[in-house]
Every structure is written in C-alpha cells, then in structure tokens.
C-alpha cells in the first residue's frame, strides 16, 4: 500500500511502545517522524487533562459493580465477611505507611485515591462554548461566556451536594443537597462565566463534606475538578 509502517504501529510507538522496525523507519522518514511527534504532543495533552484517569476508572468500576450478577454480589458480601477483617487491617497499615513523615503525596484533588475514598462518585463537567458542548473528567479551562454543568455518576443511592467554589471563596450551587439514585445525573443549574471569569473547583460530595471543603478548600472528602481560566 505504501512504504510507511501501518498507522497502528506508529501510534503504538507514539504511545511509548518499543518497535525497532518503526523506530528505524522514523530515523529516515521526516513525514512519519513529524506525524509521530504530533501524536505524542496530542497524547501528552490528553494525559495532562485526564490526570491519572481516576475519574474514568471510578466510572468503570461503578459500571462493573452495577452490572455484576446479584449472586456474585451476594458471594462478594459473604467473602467480605471472611476476608474483610484482614484486608481492612492491611489497608489501615498501608494508610499508616503512606502517611508516614517524609512521604508527600502529589496527587491532585479528584484523582484515583480521593475518588476511592468516597466509594464511587464519577464526576465530569460539561463545558458549553459557542453552542457546542465538551466533556471533561480532568482539569477544565474556561473563558468569558462559557457555561459549566456537572455530571455525576453513582453506583448506589447517595445524598449529594455540589457546586463551583471560586478561588476567591465565591460559591455557585450546581446540585442542591438531595438524595440521588444510582445512575447518571446532570446538574439542574450551571455556572456562567462573565467577562471576568474566576478560577476554582467544581466539587461534589455529601452535603457536610462539601460544606467543609468550601470552608477549608481541602478536598480530601469530596470529588473535585479544577477550573482554570484562559484568555484566548
């Protein structure tokens, strides 16, 4: 078909896989080298937006647990009775170990560990700009005129509250405190950014945790997505 390696193998190299055949070709083919460089840049941008993919994973795990057969769920509970205590002890030991002095976590709010802390709440934000919508599960950038909605995915009934906390302490409610059933929910309210947009965080959790997060700007007990301002 052509003298270049297949697309999927070039993309695999751009993803970080080793492929001596493709790498040898890249050394002598400028168009392919440029193509792989563009792929690498775009993939890096995606990873920066997605963070560790914690929200995506949490949604997957929620979906897996939602669709698990009931008998398996029952077995899981039975298993939990037998193995739960040792596992809990191990988990507690792990927490003590990672919290030891000298260990400095660098994860952003809303990444995998904070997601799991709360069971499974999948959070995404929908940005409306110039009539089109885009969904973000990592950091989102906004500019004047944008609107943000929140999307929450639950695998069990949970009392939920949420909103956007500006870096200046301003609060805009997106989810009034309410009991949400399992499934996907969109906020009934939206944040609209005027010509002087404010950075901050979209946060969701139970009402008490959200209230504490608003006061302390510590997001250990809520799920959060950072909102940044761009001036394009």
């Amino acid at each position, binding site marked *: 078909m052509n003298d270049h390696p297949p697309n999927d*193998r070039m993309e695999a190299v751009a993803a970080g896989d080793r492929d001596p055949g493709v790498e040898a070709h890249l050394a002598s083919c400028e168009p392919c080298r440029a193509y792989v460089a563009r792929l690498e840049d775009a993939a890096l941008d995606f990873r920066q937006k997605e963070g560790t993919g914690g929200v995506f994973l949490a949604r997957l795990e929620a979906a897996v647990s939602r669709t698990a057969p009931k008998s398996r769920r029952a077995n899981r509970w039975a298993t939990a009775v037998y193995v739960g205590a040792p596992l809990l002890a191990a988990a507690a030991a792990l927490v003590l170990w990672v919290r030891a002095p000298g260990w400095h976590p660098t994860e952003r709010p809303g990444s995998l560990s904070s997601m799991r802390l709360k069971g499974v709440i999948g959070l995404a934000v929908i940005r409306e700009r110039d009539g089109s919508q885009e969904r973000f599960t990592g950091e989102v950038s906004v500019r004047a005129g944008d609107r943000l909605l929140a999307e929450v995915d639950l695998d069990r009934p949970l009392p939920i509250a949420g909103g956007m906390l500006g870096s200046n302490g301003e609060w805009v409610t997106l989810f009034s405190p309410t009991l949400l059933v399992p499934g996907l929910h969109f906020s009934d309210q939206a944040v609209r950014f005027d010509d002087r947009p404010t950075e901050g965080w979209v946060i969701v959790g139970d009402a008490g945790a959200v209230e504490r997060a608003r006061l302390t700007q510590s997001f250990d007990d809520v799920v959060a997505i950072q909102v940044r301002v761009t001036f394009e």
Partner: protein
Amino acid sequence: MGNEAGLSASEVGALYERYGFFLRRRCRMVLRDDALADDVLHESFLKIMRGGAELRNVEHPLRWLYCVVDRCCFDHIRKRSHLPKSMDVPDPVGPHPGIQIETRDAILTILEELDDEERRIAMLAFVDGLSQAEIAEELGWSRVTINKKVQAIRTRADRILTEAAGSTRGVP
C-alpha cells in the same frame, strides 16, 4: 476487581493512561461525535476490564485494543441510522503520511453501509494502512479474498467521492 478472564483496575488504569488518547481518537474518527465517542470508549474499557486477560500476551496491544474499540463502534453504527458527516472539531494531528485522507474519510462515511467483515477490512486497509498481505495474515483469509473485498470497498468509496465532487461543482 480483576478476574481470570479480565484485567485488574490498576492494569486498566495503566492501559487508559498509555492508550486512552489513541483509542478515543479512533472512536471519534469512526463515530464523528464526541459524546458518543466517550460512551463507546467507556463501553470498550468495560469489556476489556471484564474479558481482556488475553491482552497480556499479545504482540501489538494497541492493534488488539483497536479491534475491541472498532467492534464497539460498529455496534453503535448498527444501532444508529445516521452519524454526523464530519466532526465539528477536526482531528488536530492529521492523517498518517501513507494514507489518502479523502479515501479514508469516504470509507468512514460508508461504514454504515458495510457489513462487519467489510468494516474490519476497511479499517485495516484504509485507516491503519495495512497491506493486503498483512490484512490476510491478520484475519486468516487468502490474499485473493482480501484483494476482492478491498477493491469492492474502494469502488464504493470512489462513488462517494465522485458524488461529492459533483455536488461541489454544482455549488455556485
């Protein structure tokens, strides 16, 4: 979370971090709808989490993942009568240097008209740029069969391109 047939959450997380961009780009290219692409990506990873243990032993993981993602996309193509003709936001990366973008886009437009076998061949030939020999080896068919099918798909794509060119000429 892991089981014998599936992958653990940490394995899936690592796959998402490494290949997530490429898989989403593939979904977006085939479905031409951002929200649907996100849904299909999610669905694909669900399948991988439940039954993707085989991935640990494959030579080209991304090709294997594309196969899963393509099948999920094809399922949605079957369910939906019409997909958008083009993306609102074009792919910023651009095409592989060996692929004719007009032909590729025409092929993507006619995926809805093809059966699953033809779709798989179309993706390998016109999106991934595999030679007919490579496709024959990948699918375990004879090269003659692949050649016939590729030519038939190309003829249909050429018809689309000719029609598109005609309608463009008709625009004042």
